């Protein structure tokens, strides 16, 4: 499991799952909030990674 994107997706999945189950009571609301949160995490991660792309590693 050395892929950064896969690890980020797993992390985003668990955090979204716990937050959505904590915040909402019905499965429908939980699925909606969880999906939105997961998509937000992934999108933000990808945007930030592309913004950092031009910077040198050292």
């Amino acid at each position: 499991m050395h892929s950064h994107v896969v690890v980020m997706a797993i992390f985003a999945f668990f955090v979204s799952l716990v937050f959505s189950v904590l915040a909402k009571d019905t499965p429908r609301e939980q699925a909606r909030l969880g999906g939105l949160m997961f998509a937000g995490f992934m999108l933000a991660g990808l945007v930030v990674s592309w913004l950092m792309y031009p910077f040198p590693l050292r």
Partner: protein
Amino acid sequence: MSPARATAVEKEKSQPGSLVLLCLASWAIPGIGHIWLGRRAKGFIFLIALPLMFAIGLALQGRLFSFDSSDILTTLEAAAQLGIGLLYFLAGPFGFGKGDVRAVTYEYGISFLIVAGLLNVLIVIDAYDVALGRK
């Protein structure tokens, strides 16, 4: 609120000792507090998700920190990881949580371990609120 849940809430309000016990149980085993209060579906999701997240953190070569008064950051990391409850104490004796700084996923593993602990603290607070009838 269902009658069974209303009874559980009233019981928790009238017995402060059991409220402490509820929070301790909820901290020790993620999700147990919600199951205790009749919110079984939520409890079982937490019971599966948080130990799994913690285990993934260990599998990613994350390190479990111990309290070190000379290093505030290490102490904060240890406090966050301690939030997961009994698993924090069980992982060490079984040889997990030593961490391998050379591993590509070392930092990711630490992040998983810290966030699993902090999420469990949120779950304890949520169980406390449910017990008091705030949710």
